[in-house]
């Protein structure tokens, strides 16, 4: 503070010495008071007008512009935030719908597959049952046939052999003896056939 004051005194004394010299060498035109009043008058006039026009007309407009911009930006940010939130909500809903659909589709697929599998199983089971029945029937038939065929074959063999014997010797032979022979032979044959 003291330094400043000293400096100011120095500056002032400098100015005054200059003004003292100005009479002889022309010096500083600043210290020639000829146009001081004129400068003060024009300064007050121009600066006053500048101040009035700036403060009444121009600065309020600029501050207004700045404020509108600020509020508009805030508003825009707000709407942007709102829209973003909405979008997020929508995205969530969308995801949910997709997930739901996926699970539904999965369930549907699973249930349908189960149905088809069950159907196939049922059909297969019934088919197997049918087949088993058929097989049992066929086996029974075969067994029957096995039983009956033996007798028929021996019968036929007896008949043909009796016929053959009749034609050969023209005489009927006792059927029981013939049948005994045939049975004996066929037994042998069977044993041979079965390969013992």
């Amino acid at each position, binding site marked *: 503070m003291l330094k400043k004051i000293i400096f100011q005194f120095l500056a002032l004394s400098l100015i005054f010495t200059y003004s003292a010299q100005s009479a002889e060498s022309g010096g500083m035109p600043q210290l020639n008071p000829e146009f001081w009043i004129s*400068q003060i008058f*024009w300064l007050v006039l*121009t600066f006053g007008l500048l101040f009035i026009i*700036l403060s009444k007309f121009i600065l309020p407009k600029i501050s207004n512009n700045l404020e509108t911009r600020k509020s508009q930006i805030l508003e825009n940010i707000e709407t942007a935030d709102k829209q973003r939130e909405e979008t997020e909500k929508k995205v969530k809903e969308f995801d949910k719908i997709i997930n739901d659909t996926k699970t539904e589709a999965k369930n549907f697929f699973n249930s349908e597959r189960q149905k088809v599998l069950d159907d196939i199983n049922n059909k297969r089971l019934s088919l197997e049952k049918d087949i088993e029945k058929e097989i049992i029937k066929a086996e029974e038939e075969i067994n029957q046939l096995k039983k009956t065929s033996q007798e028929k074959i021996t019968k036929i063999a007896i008949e043909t052999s009796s016929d053959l014997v009749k034609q050969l010797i023209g005489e009927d032979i006792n059927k029981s003896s013939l049948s005994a022979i045939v049975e004996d032979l066929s037994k042998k044959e069977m044993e041979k056939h079965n390969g013992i």
Partner: protein
Amino acid sequence: MAANPMYQFNVYRIGPEIKINNIDISFTNASLFMVISSLTILIIFNLGTKRSIIPNKIQLLAELSYSFISKMISDTAGSKAKPYFSFIFSLFMFVLFCNMFGMIPYSFTVTSHIIVTFVLAAFIFIGVTIIGFIKHGLGYLKLFVPSGVPMVLLPLIVVIEIISYLSRPISLSVRLFANMMAGHTMMKVFGGFVVSLGIVGGWLPLGFSVALTGLEILVAFLQAYVFAILTCIYLNDALNLHH
């Protein structure tokens, strides 16, 4: 005569002599540059008031200077200084444009005249003092009594504070005036060297002159800024009395 580095500060009449009650208020070159500066400020800032959300260059300039000065005021003098915004804005712009117009060759620097800066500073000084007394009444005199000073030193401190307060307009005006005058005189002197040393030795002072031009443009801005910020500080003293 043109070789005299002080010649550039001469004030001369333009047009007829205007006298009211024997007082000379003729239009001079100083008045011309005041008018030019004010009109330029008004034109630029009027162009900057277009209502568009995305500003063009001039609007951006106007709005940036608006927020620059607004921030400067609120930083130094607080929110109470808001009503004085347009005055400080006008002051800063006026001083800045006068300084800058002074940088154009063959132009006239309004702020290189002590009377102009002194009138501005005195107006600020008187205005700030009046504001202080209106806001705080006689309590404004507490400004001269800093708190926490030992009683022995108090008389001395009060005297120093009063002297420093009273020297505010002088320091404010002399700072601006001396800076402008010194810079312009120096540039003129170096320009004179360029001419007198000719094509052989003139290059060095020419380089100096170029560097000084840059420096002077910086000083022109800086002094306008200092002028405005000191006004804010004085205003802060008057508005928020916390000594």
